[in-house]
Structures are given as structure tokens and as C-alpha cells.
């Protein structure tokens, strides 16, 4: 599992007191939403020809489509990956981002992503996390949550 660790907050922990857990939980959930935003960014049209991993995979796909014709994102009956995400609280301070779409790992999983999805431009979970961390957005969300909590507790600088 790829994670973002929020740490090094021992000094503000004592200052935030009973608000510490909820403050970090808010930051963690905001970070998870930011990662979701990266994952659902439309990657553009499917790239042809489709790069199948195996002939068996291609045969399975066309057999499963039956007479429905070419797949359209979000079509009726689709698990609608783009709108399948949700953020849940994990423990006192954590958050987890998950998808209801059973095939999400084959589109976004850094280990399982299929070549045709990479070619289309879908980014992996790892790339999305790196983007949110490397851009400084994750830190900014923690900083915003901490400063907001400090102000609510009376800190005025």
C-alpha cells in the first residue's frame, strides 16, 4: 500500500491538545481528496490500437462486450470509475481513499496498471501521491489544518 505519512508534529501536538486528532484527520482527508482529484483528471481519448497484455485478455474483452459496441466511459451498467471514489476516516488521524470499481487497480494501480490504460494517460496511484507530495500540496493542507486549529485555540501570532 502506498501511503503518505504525517509526522514530526510533536511540538504542535501538545499545543493542539484534544484537538490534535481531529485536526490531523481533517488534513489527512483533505490530502486524500486532493489525490482523488489527480486520479479523476480526464486523461483524454483511448489510444488506438489498444495494447492488449495478452490475446486472451483481448478475447475476454470482446466476449464480455457482446453486442454492446465500443465502451463509453460511464455508460449504463459501467462501474463508473471516475465517480467511484470515496474517502473514509481511518483510525484517529488517518484517511483512506478507495474505489468501488472492481477494476480500479488495473487502471490506477502502480503494480497492476494495464498498458492500454497507461497509454491512454491514466496516472497510477503512486504518481498521484507523488504529485500531491512533491508539489507541496500535502504539506500545505497539514499546515492549513494546524494553523486553523491553533487560531481556534486562541493563538494570534
Amino acid at each position: 500500500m502506498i501511503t503518505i505519512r504525517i509526522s514530526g508534529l510533536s511540538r504542535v501536538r501538545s499545543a493542539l491538545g484534544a484537538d490534535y486528532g481531529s485536526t490531523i484527520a481533517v488534513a489527512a482527508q483533505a490530502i486524500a481528496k486532493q489525490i482523488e482529484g489527480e486520479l479523476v483528471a480526464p486523461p483524454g481519448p483511448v489510444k488506438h490500437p489498444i495494447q492488449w497484455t495478452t490475446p486472451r485478455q483481448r478475447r475476454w474483452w470482446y466476449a464480455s462486450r457482446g453486442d454492446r459496441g465500443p465502451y463509453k466511459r460511464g455508460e449504463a451498467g459501467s462501474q463508473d470509475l471516475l465517480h467511484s471514489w470515496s474517502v473514509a476516516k481511518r483510525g484517529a488521524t488517518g484517511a483512506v481513499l478507495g474505489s468501488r470499481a472492481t477494476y480500479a487497480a488495473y487502471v490506477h494501480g502502480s503494480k497492476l496498471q494495464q498498458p492500454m490504460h497507461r497509454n491512454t494517460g491514466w496516472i497510477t496511484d503512486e504518481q498521484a501521491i507523488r504529485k500531491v507530495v512533491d508539489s507541496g500540496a500535502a504539506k500545505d493542507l497539514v499546515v492549513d489544518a494546524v494553523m486553523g486549529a491553533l487560531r481556534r485555540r486562541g493563538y494570534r501570532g
Partner: protein
Amino acid sequence: MAENRRDTDKDMIQSESVRDEVIRYLMAEHDLTLADATAEVNSWAEST
């Protein structure tokens, strides 16, 4: 010249981010140097 400096200071104040405010808090309330406070904030969110 003095007016230019005031304008520069004003720009700096206007561009001050919440991050800078937290760094200042760590320096004031926890007696950290600017370098230590900055390093501490930079360690708050890392991918593993």
C-alpha cells in the same frame, strides 16, 4: 529608496503564507531557529 523598501516589505507581508505563519509560530513558541522550524514543517507530510 525608503518608499521602495516599504513597497517591498508590503509585498512580502501580502505574500506571506500560512506556512510562514506556522514557521513563525514554531520559532516564537518553541524556540526553534528558522532553519529548524522550516525543516520541521517540511517533514510533516512525506510519501513512504
